[in-house]
């Protein structure tokens, strides 16, 4: 990069301007990524954190996909699943969003009902004794030993543990019996839950299990799309991020198109003097990558700084290396692609134009 690095210094105003655009887009993408991850965590951490590998949903009607809201399974379903080969455990989980209150504090919570003896149950869970996530305890202003009302039930707080969250509400673990009682307005069918959490070995035949139990089984990651709020949010946030990536690639492409056109007389001279085309392409691409790396580096740094400032508060924001570095890497890759497509026109510059007095 002999000429390009000197051009960079010589035309620093123009490159600083373009670099600033890259910094800002990276900052925006970084913040959006942190927010997306933060919102996703609030939506899904209770599901992704389950010590199980699959969830069996009640098979939805034809043409529909599974959803937590529409799923309902019976005792037959999980006894059926536990008996299948390769299934180490099949535990029912009841999920329901409820109002919880303690003193004059109230909060919307997601009640997760599980059998207290099950492997997926948090320690301390017992009939009449709930385990609250930290967020739920904080919002209700309670600690272990206090009493809370969950839906229509009085529960003792057995423990406060974990940061499980589901559909933007903090999770409260109750025994399955209590959960069923909360949900039963008047008479109920009994023995119901929302999904069955499966721990399976590699040999388990899930399709046959679904067939026998009348369920549709999803891995934990696939199951996230069954959370209605997650699907809607995540979809639109990813779309925005995608557009930002596309915009940055286009803007960088446009910048280098103009830049390369401005330089075409110089390129013709260099070619006439004997510079090989690959030499010139490498020179120009190196310049683009240098600017991109500097711009995205600074943008990612700023995004991390802003993330640190707001991450602790009420804003759902996840700041970890992937949320900052992955979008930065994508920015560099897409920007370099946009630049490469524009720089390609170097190939077409005719050195003959350097001769004569055309300039």
């Amino acid at each position, binding site marked *: 990069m*002999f000429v390009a690095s000197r051009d960079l210094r010589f035309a620093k105003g123009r490159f600083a301007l373009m670099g600033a655009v890259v910094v800002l887009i990276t900052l925006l993408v970084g913040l959006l990524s942190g927010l997306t991850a933060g919102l996703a965590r609030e939506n899904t951490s209770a599901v992704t954190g389950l010590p199980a590998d699959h969830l069996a949903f009640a098979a939805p009607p034809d043409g529909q996909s599974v959803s937590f809201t529409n799923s309902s399974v019976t005792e037959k379903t999980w006894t059926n699943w536990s008996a299948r080969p390769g299934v180490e455990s099949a535990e029912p989980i009841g999920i329901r969003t409820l109002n919880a209150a303690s003193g004059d504090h109230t909060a919307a919570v997601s009640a997760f009902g599980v059998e207290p003896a099950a492997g997926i149950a948090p320690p301390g869970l017992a009939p009449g004794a709930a385990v609250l996530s930290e967020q739920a305890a904080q919002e209700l202003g309670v600690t272990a030993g206090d009493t809370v009302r969950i839906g229509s039930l009085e529960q003792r707080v057995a423990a406060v543990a974990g940061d499980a969250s589901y559909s933007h509400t903090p999770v409260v673990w109750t025994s399955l019996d209590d959960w069923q009682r909360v949900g039963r307005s008047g008479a109920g069918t009994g023995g119901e839950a929302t999904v069955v959490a499966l721990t399976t070995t590699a040999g388990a035949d899930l399709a046959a299990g679904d067939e026998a139990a009348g369920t549709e089984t999803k891995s934990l990651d696939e199951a996230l799309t069954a959370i209605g709020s997650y699907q809607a949010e995540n979809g639109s946030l990813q779309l925005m991020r995608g557009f930002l990536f596309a915009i940055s690639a286009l803007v960088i492409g446009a910048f280098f198109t103009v830049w390369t056109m401005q330089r075409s007389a110089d390129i013709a*001279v*260099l070619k006439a003097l004997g*510079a090989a085309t690959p030499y010139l392409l490498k020179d120009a691409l190196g310049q683009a990558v240098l600017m991109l790396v500097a711009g995205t580096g600074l943008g990612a740094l700023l995004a991390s700084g802003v993330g640190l400032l707001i991450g602790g508060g009420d804003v759902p924001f996840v700041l970890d290396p992937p949320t900052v570095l992955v979008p930065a890497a994508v920015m560099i890759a897409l920007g370099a692609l946009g630049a490469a497509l524009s720089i390609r026109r170097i190939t077409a510059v005719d050195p*003959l134009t350097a001769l*004569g*007095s055309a300039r």
Partner: protein
Amino acid sequence: MTLTLDTVTLTYQDGDGRLTALDRVALDVPAGTMAAIVGPSGSGKSSLLAVAATLVTPDSGQVLVAGTSTGELSRAEKSALRRERVGIVFQQPNLLPSLTSAEQLHVMAHMDGRKPRQVRDRAHELLAAVGLADKADRRPHQLSGGQRQRVNIARALMNDPDVLLVDEPTSALDHERGAAVLDLIVRLTRERGTATVLVTHDRAHLTEADQVCEMTDGRLYVPAAA
């Protein structure tokens, strides 16, 4: 013979037909000598230089640069030939705006895969030879027209070419500066043993040339030894 054109014909697309820019041109330029080409505008002088510099491929005929026949060379090989064997002094100085005078010379080595550090002394020696030792760190916009033209000449000599092609080097200069630039080209031709082709419209330049050729309508007339 360091530069030989053997019955070179070059045509350009011109509307429906073709325009003959060079018509069976033959020219021999031995090392250390200068051939001056004169002729009216549009007669084909720049085209002759372009062919000699392998910037265009003639329709027929042979171009030999330093003994290498250029007809069969690939694009990359032609680039390498220009880098290593051919020096071009452009009509306009065509300096790169972001580079200092010394760097205009260094880039010639860099594009040839050598480190600018290794050629610093040579660049300095060449700038001194064209009287610009004290302007090595100036960028083109900080130089006068004549100074730029001298950097242009020094750059053409950087990779020690066998063939030096010079296109109207004084057209942008006043008479005195033009004469100085011409003296420089003649001196460097003798000292460095290049085969130099000088396109000019200035008859005053012709006394210094070893051969003077007239170009008219693509035909080159080489007078019997002057």
